[in-house]
């Protein structure tokens, strides 16, 4: 076997791990879409905001210090303490739950029964708002996020697999962080499935997803469900934010992962949790392999930006509801 073949396998494995991270973001979309029929464009910005808040808590930054300094002419920036990672994560989670409550109270409540496009627009507005708000609160500079996850390449795997190829092959290079992210994503998915199948709240969530009015009529509070769903989406966003943030630093481009997750949704279907996972894997592997086999040799590279969309687009023409989506039935 040539080294190139093993290199292809390495690309495949890396694509799989990137795919898991995409599905992590896509999962947040699916949860909200199922429960409230809202396509939440702000999911990516939520991940950014969660990561910013986490870094801010960890480093003991004073919120809005930039603004306060500009108005009062003071010069404050840090409280001067460092919180342990776990404590900061719990605090951030509380912020995300508060955020979910506020979104329900001030936005969703007033937009009940509007057309889906209006709700979608509202979440774009929310994305803009949060992006500015996050920057105002914690500053717009690129931050380093470290919650104690191992970084760098996995040397164990590299040494153990080096014998496979010829003298040019040094073993599979996999990022430790990616491996951890995959493990966490898997854990998250399993716990979400268990939660929605075996708890009372989970059953209520599924009832709301099936039929809003029927759920209301058996006494499920829609508003409480929405707060819960947005909180869970906030939690998923936090996990995605930690993973992506540790990988490439906490910065504005983090919010663009939402755009990466959209083709995943199209492929997997907007309403299916397994769809989000499988779709993410297909997109992750597909775009890395396409770049490796066709993009770099023939098209000049950087095909990753659009490949996922094109794949999803072609796929949709043949199966409009996605892989696992509910069949769209129209009645006149």
């Amino acid at each position, binding site marked *: 076997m040539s080294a190139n073949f093993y290199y292809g396998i390495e690309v495949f494995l890396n694509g799989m791990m990137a795919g898991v991270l995409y599905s992590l973001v896509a999962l947040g979309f699916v949860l909200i879409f199922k429960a409230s029929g809202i396509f939440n464009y702000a999911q990516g910005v939520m991940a950014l905001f969660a990561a910013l808040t986490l870094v801010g808590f960890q480093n003991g930054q004073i919120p809005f210090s930039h603004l306060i300094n500009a108005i009062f002419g003071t010069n404050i920036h840090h409280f001067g303490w460092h919180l342990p990672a776990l404590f900061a994560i719990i605090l951030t989670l509380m912020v995300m739950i508060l955020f979910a409550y506020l979104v329900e109270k001030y936005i969703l409540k007033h937009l009940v029964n509007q057309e889906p496009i209006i709700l979608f627009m509202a979440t774009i*507005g929310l994305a803009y708002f949060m992006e500015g708000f996050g920057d105002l609160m914690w500053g717009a500079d690129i931050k380093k996020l470290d919650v104690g996850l191992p970084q760098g390449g996995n040397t164990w795997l590299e040494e153990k697999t080096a014998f496979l190829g010829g003298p040019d092959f040094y073993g599979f290079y996999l990022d430790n962080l990616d491996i951890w992210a995959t493990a966490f994503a898997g854990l998250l998915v399993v716990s979400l499935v268990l939660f929605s199948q075996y708890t009372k709240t989970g059953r209520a969530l599924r009832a709301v997803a099936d039929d809003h009015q029927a759920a209301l009529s058996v006494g499920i509070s829609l508003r409480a469900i929405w707060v819960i769903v947005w909180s869970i989406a906030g939690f998923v966003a936090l996990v995605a934010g930690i993973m992506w943030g540790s990988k490439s630093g906490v910065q504005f481009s983090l919010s663009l992962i939402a755009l990466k997750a959209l083709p995943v949704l199209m492929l997997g279907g907007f309403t299916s949790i397994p769809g989000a996972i499988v779709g993410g894997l297909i997109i992750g592997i597909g775009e890395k392999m396409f770049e490796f086999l066709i993009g770099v040799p023939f098209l000049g590279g950087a095909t990753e930006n*659009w490949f996922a969309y094109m794949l999803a687009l072609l796929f949709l023409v043949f199966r*409009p509801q996605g892989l696992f989506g509910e069949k769209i039935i129209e009645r006149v």
Partner: protein
Amino acid sequence: MLYREAGDFKTSYAKDQQTFPIALDRWGYFLTIAVAVLVVPFILNDYWSNAVVLPFLIYAIAAIGLNILIGYCGQVSLGSGGFMAVGAYASYKLMTAFPELNIVFVVILSGGITALVGMLFGLPSLRIKGFYLAVATLAAQFFLVWLFNKVPWFYNYSASGQISAPERSLFGFAVTGANAHPATSYLFCLGFVFVMAWAARNMTRGANGRKWMAIRDMDIAAEIIGVDPLKAKLTAFGVSSFYIGISGALLFSVYLGAAEVGEAFGIEKSFLILFMVIIGGLGSMFGSFAGAAFMILMPVLLKNIMVGQMDWPTDLASHFQFVIVGGLIIIFLIVEPHGLAQLWRLTKEKLRLWPFPH
């Protein structure tokens, strides 16, 4: 008292079907045009032209285009930035390949090319609807931007990867390039805006517009009464892309002068135009203008207040701008989901009864 139709008797079909049936509206319309043509060019300076007036006119065309697609035909598109890039690069290639070609034809031809590209990307709309379509049009956005970035033929193999507009003139006055006077650029764009808005208004009142609206309201019912969804959707995509392409060509050649595709025609442009359409009002010509004016004027105003009056650092002001734009969009959608056009309609209803509302 002033604004009402009492005593304004229609004696022919033509009069009954005119765009502005109420006399005061008609006079307001003529007055606006007169001011725009006869007064504004003489008082226009560089700052106002570049910061407010030119972008307003150019984005108004794009907003009309997107409004035809979303507001009249009900097909959501997030690819407007990509289509504007097609218009811009088409105009650049035409200008450099055929230096003799009149700039007016260059702009119109760019619109035509964009229309073809738009129809191509509109094909999936026959199979997919709603959000799926919106996300599918994002494919156009990313693919087109990548294409203009990666294929050097589109930017004539220039080292920087930028395109810059050569000087072209109309009736002896420079329209594009560094020597163009603000008033000439303004009048050039105004001409396009006037003709295109007039055409769009009449198109949406005619057979095509009615077909689009039938598709928007319920596609299956429309098909049953004999509207061909293939034709209706593709014409909507074509016409809409034509408008957006012309706007892109004008944005590049007249307003920016030089452009780099990822920066000038990124996804933010798609959202900007979408915001204009939604805030202005879906399915309304007036709304397209109002939305464009709102989205162009508000950042200028905010910047003037925060940086100019309160001496804040510019980065802080730009963060605040995000917060305010986002907040305003949410508030707008909650208070009046049908946009500025609906507010204007309500005001007119009130005015007709004023001062005796009962």
